[in-house]
């Protein structure tokens, strides 16, 4: 059965980018306002899920040729790696630090190592959610 989903397809084209942007925004907002790695990752993956729902899996995978299992694995490496990184600097496992740096365009900017940790969280969430959804939907 071929469904008539022209409206959904058209809307998706615009909405996906809005959701993706929102996800990135949430990710960076997490330091000082609601957001963060987990929620950012979830929003990103919900955008991907929407794509998978609207187009078929093959089309999306042609556009985004990424193995999401590897994305999840890279995420875990990031999360654990920042912990190990702290040990290399002589601090306790998973110690996070931050500092204010002067960057050319942004001016005085606060940079925190916790961002790296959150990147790991976000990547793992994206990778795992998409992996689960793909493996279930491919299993026909």
């Amino acid at each position, binding site marked *: 059965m071929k469904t008539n989903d022209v409206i959904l397809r058209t809307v998706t084209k615009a909405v996906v980018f809005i959701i993706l942007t929102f996800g990135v925004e*949430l990710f960076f907002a*997490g*330091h*000082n*306002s*609601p*957001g*963060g*790695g*987990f*929620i950012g990752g*979830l*929003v990103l*993956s*919900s955008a991907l*899920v929407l794509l998978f*729902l609207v187009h078929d899996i093959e089309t999306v995978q042609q556009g985004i040729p990424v193995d999401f*299992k590897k994305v*999840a*694995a890279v*995420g*875990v490496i990031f*999360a*654990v790696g920042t*912990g190990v990184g702290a040990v290399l600097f002589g601090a306790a*496992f*998973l110690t*996070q630090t*931050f500092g204010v740096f002067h960057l050319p365009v942004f001016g005085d900017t*606060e940079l*925190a190592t*916790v961002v790296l*940790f*959150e990147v*790991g*969280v976000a990547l*793992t*969430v994206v*990778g*795992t*959610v998409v*992996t*689960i*959804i793909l*493996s*279930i*939907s*491919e*299993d*026909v």
Partner: protein
Amino acid sequence: MLTILMAILIPFIAAILIPFIYKFIPRINIGWFVLVVPILLFIGLVRYVPSVAAGETYIKTISWIPSAGINFTTYLDGLSLIFGLLITGVGSLVILYSIYYLSDRESLGHFYVYLLLFMGAMLGVVFSDNMMVLYVFWELTSISSFLLIAFWYHRKQSRYGAQKSLLITVTGGLAMLIGFVMLYAMTGTFSIRENIAAIGDFTNHPLFVAALVLVLLGAFTKSAQFPFHIWLPDAMEAPTPVSAYLHSATMVKAGIYLVARFTTIFGGEEVWFYAVSGIGLLTLFWGSLNAIRQTDLKALLAYSTISQLGLVMSLFGLGSVALNAGVSSDSILYTQATFAALFHLINHSTFKGALFMVVGIVDHNVGTRDVRRLGGLMSLMPVTFSIALIGSFSMAGLPPFNGFLSKEMFFEAMLMMRDFDVLSIRSLGTIFPIVAWIASIFTFVYSMIIVFQTFFGEHQPDRLDRKAHEASKGMLIAPSVLAVLVVGIFFFPNIIGNYLLRPAMAAIYPTFLDVDQLTPHISAWHGLKNNMPLLMTIGVVIIGFLLYISLHRWRSLYSVGPMLWNLDTLYNWSLKQMESSSTAITNYYMSGHLRDYLTYIFGFFLFAVGGSLVLLGGFSFDVSNDAPILINEVILVLVMAIAAVCIVFVPSRVTAILLNGVLGYSIALFFVIFRAPDLALTQIVVETVTTALFLLCFYFLPELKREKSVRSSKILNGIIAISAGVLVTVIALSVQGNKLFDSISIYFENAYELTGGKNIVNTILGDFRAFDTMLEVVVLFIAGIGVYTLIKLKARKGERDVED
């Protein structure tokens, strides 16, 4: 200089690198790269010999989990040095041998990774001072042994042998772990050295004997002592280099190491003496008796290894008497047994390693190890024959080979038991030398079988798979080195005695201050007068020779009555019973109905949580501090209640999923009302994604059907459902009424200064409790991989079962 910590870690690091080297440099046999590791370690350890012989010990602690008393403490003394040298020395030779033994078509990458893993684990066992760390390495040796036995995993026998060895040694390891924890409960430390110092005050503690027995269980299973020896013959399914390395020279000696190490802690106890020397003697006898009836050369060597391990074990048992008797000039005599044990341990590694390699060569070149098909190989394989001769005669206890020296010392120690009056056994003491002597006769017989039935007699080329020829030079290097050692140690035993055994004796008997008294001078000739051991050896040779000659007449005795009783049958039977009964139990409650599982879950929840609430009297409602309930909250609750009730009655799945979504979004609204934007946001997105997931799953399911169930079960389900709901409500209310702990929010009050983040929720997630978050991420990943593998790798219909 090589630090001990590096010695443990280098094999592991190499194990990580090997797969890459294997992949990127396929032209050179990977074994040559691996060979570098044990050789370097061996040289590094040899450089410790002079200073250790001078009485020095090396200790280094790295804090790991100090709060639990678990630290990575490496400790090098005489005892661990002997084992370290054996592990790296025999390891080098075995790897050299395996380069020629294994063909390039085998998955060499796996093989050497397992082997390096084993080497590192084994070094970890002997160099760790902390019992918990020791335990981890201990089990790692079992696991790598499992992997190596199952190296040819397409053979059913290999898998069977691997499983058997793993089950038995890990069970023993668990018992040992309990023993360690008991020791910790008594002395409050996991450090072996601190235990040695402190244990004196606890010998009457009720846990003391229990800990002793449990630690011994670990040692006995690992060292294949009766009745746990049954795994070792089946482990011979492993490639021969593995058998030579793990199952004769090193891993099976881990149990011996444990006994030697813990003699200082438990040795004063009578139970220790009876268990170690009794079981050791029984194993010695049983192993040698069973070795004779084997027709497979490797099985014969397996039983002979069991028997020799029993010999060493029994000597350690005798040696512990010295600790029981206290320090005196009499008790120093008993330490000779320990000395003999250590000496024989080294000798055994040399001659047994050589013999295993010889059998491997025969198997490799001729295609069989069945003594009934072999014979007359002497002229075809002269070098192999010489090595076999040296190894076997040393095992039989003949001069001029090192086995003679330690066998004499063994007899001497056993004879000491005749006038043994420390533990009030007097007449029983006479049994010791008699059993030892009989076992030695059997040892002589099977040693002769190896030499004469393989290399003498009639050559039967038509019964062999391949034409017999001498092995390649490379394959002969390793066993030749061992054979040279066998002879060399006979002529210069005191080099070993002074440099290796002396510091080891000092490590086992720290209370005996005079080390020189502990190390006797080893000599081959004690004179004729009063030389009972020599007479015993002569007796062994004469009677053993007669028995060997008449072997065909009495071999049939093995098939009568008690000899057919088999521990293997018992093992197989209990394994089968365990499988069938656990299947029966599982099938009983795993009905396949989701409803039943929910009944179990909620039933247990009601029983455990509700029960403890009733028992502890946790019902106390205090609503005085609660905020007033507003009208919009009431409306939300009503919406949720209606949605929840409707789920049960709607006819289609999609409606049910959407109603479930209503519940989720309402919860998100609650978060908004209670000003938790983070939670609200998360809840909304999670709800969206899970609804999509549900829709995906349910898309493939058939139409929802009404379940027809009996009225009584409906009522029961209703009761369980309602009481579970009531219980959750009660808990929620009781939580408010019971403030048992202070609020922990003070920890997070300085969040901004400490972390630079204004969102306190995320500072908790990313900074304060980052460890939790990290583990959650890992768990999430594992769950994802789990879902993926479950779905992708499930057996297709009609696919062959890979188990057979």
